[in-house]
């Protein structure tokens, strides 16, 4: 693997999205990331053993096992190796404990009691590797009155304050459609690990990190908290509007698309007027300055809505961007896969998966001038690398691996 973290190895018990995304980012940065799963309880984002094969894979001959063909799991586990170990059996736990000293980083996103119940709390892990960094990512953190309350993105969004801010101006609070808090917490998981890594690089000392999804997400809307603390105002929902800028909206176009546009500066407003060919807008004193446009936003939205209803989205977006105006056509979850700008920067990449074949995957969120990051592995199938990893790191041979499979400690299939 190449990348700035190519000297690192992480053993991860992350599942679903937030934790898995954090550790995928480690892998994209070059680290050797090894996920531990149990055959009895595979990653919940693989979907269960009973799940049907996704529709578009039913005619793909190599697509044998639905749990290896989950769009969710396979989207957030690139550049990882996956092994299966049954940690409820002594030999499974022993093997994990033998792997820990070979990895400087451990990450997990169980509810807070689980690691302790497995005998894998921070103190136990540092007995195996004194400079270990442990990232524990949970819904509400490892302390406090809600620590044992389970949560996922769909409930962290309401409890972190996000849902109260998300929605139409005249509508109820809403969730954002796809567990957004996991994505926020995932980026923060990488941030936490890199913070600890620098401290270890300087001092040689590892540490424990307690990441609460509620708190991480709260900081993403923390300005609304500061508004309450400093003014007493409880912020509501804004739809597509912005507290400073107008116009700032999403408008229906002639060809049935939606176009987002905004003017953050007066020059951008004049560029909108020029693109629309409406000199009378540019000279209208209500709209000359930002404050006026904000005050008269309803009138402004009506004018722009009428204009866009007669325009095709993609050509107009091109003209607006060329004029220096923030503009974008609303992509859906299919069309986004073909966006040439996202393709050019490897944000969307075609990845060849052993069962699914080649499909567009989400790729790199950042780039480094010193050298390209590379996507070298599709998301692993269940237990795909157990024999390879145990052989490479612990010297376990094929006979011993066969015994582990025989005893149900490892393997690549559902439990017998």
């Amino acid at each position: 693997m190449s990348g700035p973290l190519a000297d690192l190895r992480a053993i991860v018990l992350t599942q679903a999205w937030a934790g898995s995304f954090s550790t995928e980012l480690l892998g994209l940065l070059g680290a050797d990331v090894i996920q531990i799963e149990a055959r009895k309880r595979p990653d919940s984002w693989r979907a269960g053993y009973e799940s049907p094969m996704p529709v578009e894979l039913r005619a793909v001959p190599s697509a044998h096992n639905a749990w290896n063909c989950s769009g969710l799991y396979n989207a957030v586990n690139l550049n990882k190796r996956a092994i299966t170990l049954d940690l409820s059996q002594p030999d499974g736990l022993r093997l994990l404990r033998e792997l820990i000293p070979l990895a400087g980083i451990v990450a997990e996103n169980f509810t807070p009691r689980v690691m302790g119940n497995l005998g894998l709390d921070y103190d136990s892990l540092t007995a195996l590797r004194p400079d270990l960094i442990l990232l524990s990512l949970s819904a509400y953190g490892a302390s406090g009155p809600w620590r044992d309350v389970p949560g996922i993105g769909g409930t962290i969004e309401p409890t972190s304050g996000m849902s109260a801010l998300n929605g139409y101006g005249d509508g109820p609070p809403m969730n954002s459609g796809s567990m957004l808090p996991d994505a926020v917490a995932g980026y923060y998981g990488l941030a936490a690990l890199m913070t600890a890594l620098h401290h270890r690089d300087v001092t040689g000392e590892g540490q424990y990190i307690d990441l609460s999804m509620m708190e991480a997400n709260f900081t993403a809307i923390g300005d609304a908290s500061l508004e309450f603390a400093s003014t007493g105002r409880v912020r509501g929902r804004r739809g597509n509007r912005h507290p400073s800028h107008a116009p700032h909206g999403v408008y229906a176009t002639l060809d049935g698309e939606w176009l987002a546009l905004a003017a953050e500066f007066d020059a951008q407003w004049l560029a909108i007027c020029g693109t629309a060919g409406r000199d009378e807008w540019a000279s209208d004193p209500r709209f000359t300055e930002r404050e006026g446009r904000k005050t008269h936003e309803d009138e402004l939205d009506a004018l722009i809505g009428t204009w866009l209803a007669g325009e095709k989205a993609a050509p107009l977006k091109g003209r607006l961007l060329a004029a220096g105006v923030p503009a974008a056509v609303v992509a859906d979850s299919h069309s986004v896969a073909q966006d040439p700008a996202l393709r050019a920067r490897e944000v969307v990449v075609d990845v060849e998966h052993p069962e699914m074949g080649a499909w567009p995957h989400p790729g790199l969120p950042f780039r480094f001038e010193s050298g390209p990051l590379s996507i070298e592995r599709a998301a692993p199938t269940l237990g795909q690398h157990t024999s390879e990893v145990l052989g490479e790191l612990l010297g376990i041979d094929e006979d011993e691996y066969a015994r582990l499979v025989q005893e149900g400690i490892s393997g690549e299939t559902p439990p017998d």
Partner: protein
Amino acid sequence: MTREPGTTTRRALDDLRVVDLSTSVAAAWCGRLLADFGADVVVVEGADNPLRGLAPFDAEERSILGRYVQANKRSLAIDWEQDVAAVVARLLDRADIVVLSAAPERLVEHGVARESVEREALLRVAVTPHGLSGPLAGAPGNDLTHWARSGWASINGLADAPPLQGAGPIASIMAGVAAYGAVLAALHQRERGGTGDTVDVAELDAVAVTNGASMLRSLLAGTPQARPARVTFQTGPVPVADGHFALTLSRAHFWRDAMNELGLPDLADDEELFRNRRESAAEIAPLVEAKLSERTRADLFERLGDLRVVAGPVLDMGELAKNEHLRGRDFFQTPDLATSAGGATEFPGAPFKMGATPWQLRRDAPALGEHSLEVLAEAGFEADAIDGLVQRGAVLEATS
């Protein structure tokens, strides 16, 4: 220089010096995190820094969002129209990291010496709307257009209404967090004998990657995920007696325990219904939501929490300010140094708790130029040189 574990008092990044030239929320948040974990972060800004002009404002006419993303930093105010290239170059020459919201080349265009901008050991992190390369490099963009182009807006909101942006500056914050992680990864490479680097983070990219799970699932399903016609208890928060409440009954035992708790035993024991819950939503939702509407958020959360059912109340910022759990974890923090005229204000606290090297909010956001003189002195400018810079208006002092 390994120390005994547990004896350290350092903060994780307190060996780092950062120059923050950003004028966007995304880049400024990267700088804010560097400061929160110990780096010395100096904002170099003009009097027209857009971050000071973002509504809403507090009683002292400060931008609340600007204050949020600039806390823990010091401010050196300069007039970019004057000859300030040597000042900026001197600061860059002493820095480990420079945070930018535009291409590094823009500094060279401003006259800052190329050898300072491109110094080998310096880490440049540029957080821009669309990145430093690619077809959209240099094109404008913001949270709204990123939500649109990434696909997120297409699944947020309702089917018969426009696609919807996210709440507040979440896209910018995500990009800032990604940039923070990436620049520290580059720092690790430098520590191992590598050189400096330019880290290129596009706000759009950081957001679009996070829509990728919906993308791949939708591609495999053959149809794009769509905005729902209406929110039901299975897709988002629904009305209860005193607000809104979310139940995400993704597992059979959540379903069973929740239905029993709501007094719907017939639904609880119907496994067929659980398996077909999406298809049966129209039929079941009115029954469940009628029961939910009789209960309060606190009652539901306590009872379902005891049953280990994933569920949660919609809370607003007024409620969260007194939330027992956040208070129980000492989440909110008041800056050690309150520089504002209006007195101390509680800020949101650490995004994650570090066992050995805690997050710390040392100071409130600086007034424009509040630290101009001390920063110049630290950078080795003599008193008369500083006087000269101030006299000719190249460097601005705080007016308060």
